[in-house]
């Protein structure tokens, strides 16, 4: 059995499952994961001052409460304008895409720090 600790720095992106469980328990390891996705999600929103404010989302049969909406920006896909919401909870950053034509939400980016 290899007892050497894995060579990890706090900013290395890697798969947490590849880390031996023993060392994961013993070492104060920070897992960083950045994924580009395109998954349809359900989002609970409120409408306030002519703005959409996302509050919670459901992805992969799991509910996430949105603690903070950090940035909202738009982009053009041809003539269509889509909205991106950069939101976060205590451990995750999510980038959500709202297609106003079809009122469809997608999770397009996930960054986990925990």
């Amino acid at each position, binding site marked *: 059995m290899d007892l050497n600790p894995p060579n990890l*720095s*706090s*900013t290395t992106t890697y798969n947490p499952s590849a880390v031996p469980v023993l060392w994961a328990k013993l070492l104060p390891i920070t897992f*960083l994961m950045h994924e580009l996705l395109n998954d349809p999600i359900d989002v609970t929103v409120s409408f306030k001052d002519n703005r959409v404010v996302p509050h919670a989302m459901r992805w992969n049969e799991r509910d996430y409460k949105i603690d*903070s909406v*950090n*940035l909202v*920006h*738009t*982009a*053009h*896909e*041809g*003539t*269509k304008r889509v909205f*991106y919401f*950069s939101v*976060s909870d205590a451990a995750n*950053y999510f*980038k959500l895409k709202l297609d106003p034509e079809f009122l469809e939400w997608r999770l397009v980016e996930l*960054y986990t*720090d925990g």
Partner: protein
Amino acid sequence: MERIVLHIDMNSYFASVEQQANPFLRGKPIGITGKSQERSIVATASIEAKRLGVKTAMSTWEAKKVCPSIILWPGDPEKYSDIMHRFNAIYESFTPNVEPFSVDESFLDITEEAEDYLGAICMAQMIRSRLRDELGECITASIGIAPNKLMAKLASGHKKPNGLTVARPQDVLSLLDECDLEDLCGIGPRIHERLRALGVEMFQQLREFPLENLQHEFHSYGTWLYEAAHGRDSSVIVSPTRGGVRGAGDKDTKSYGHSYTLPQNTDDPRILKRYLFGLADKVAWRMRRDGVAARRVTAFVRFGNFSDHGEQRTFSEPVADGMRLFQIAWKILEPVGLVDVRLVGLSASLLSRGLAQPSLFKKERKMATVLCALDELQSRYGSGVWKRGSTLPVEFKSRSSGFHFDHEI
């Protein structure tokens, strides 16, 4: 009347936008790169990364070497462009005289609105407050206030990040004397070197240098240097909303071009053709969108040892078709020994308004009709809605037959 000009420069712009979007990046050294991080450069380093020695335009491997803890983050140009429009809209709510200078810098002429330097300082603080409220606390700016654009830009760079520097007319010379020659926009490394060879190391020496000698050495640029050393600049603020627009389809556009750093260096002409064809289609689409056609094509490659080779061809019939651009570009590159190629690029110039003349040949006319339809699709649904089959990577599926029908590929 003495003018009052503001220069607002966003601090580590791309990085601070990403730190605003993603709170887990805040307080950490990050570098904004291209999509392929391995062979990219750091387009913007965060303030934390800069403190650890990472510089803008450093290659990613060098940045990793200087700062092993740096987080390399792929850039999102659409996001930066959207935020840019938003901060310029904030500026325009203070004055109509706004000139975007680059993606993260703008000049504002606030002579009438501010009235004096105290008013200008109040306005700068109000702009800063609006930026924080509407864009977020991570997106900060350094502001310079001065009697002209040149001095305002120098002032904004004087204190970073999040600084506010005021150079009233009577302060301009002392500001110049505190700065290095290269801090001034317009004095690059070459001019600096030539000035040093003349024994000019500081602005004070430049002011005392005879104008005739400067003109003899630098021709008309010598006059500009002399005026700049005295803190004088007569250039006016050109606002896009007042007819100074620069952008897609601008009549001042001289050329259209794209280049691409390959994921791995290659000698394979099929791979090079595929990328070159993709670039040619991109260039051609932008030209057709803007209603222009080109009579000159320049194709260029960069080799693994960072040497470059590029040539151009000029022709009589204007072209705005990706296929034709590719054929011309490939004719230029094919005879070159394409070994260990790192980057391939293409640009089209000698532009003329109006699209190319319809061809006499039926096949080419049909192709033009198809392109028209594809352009409409692309306008409606965005880039990436169509691709030529020949620009797609060839994927060999793993063998699935269990009956020895599979063959050598």
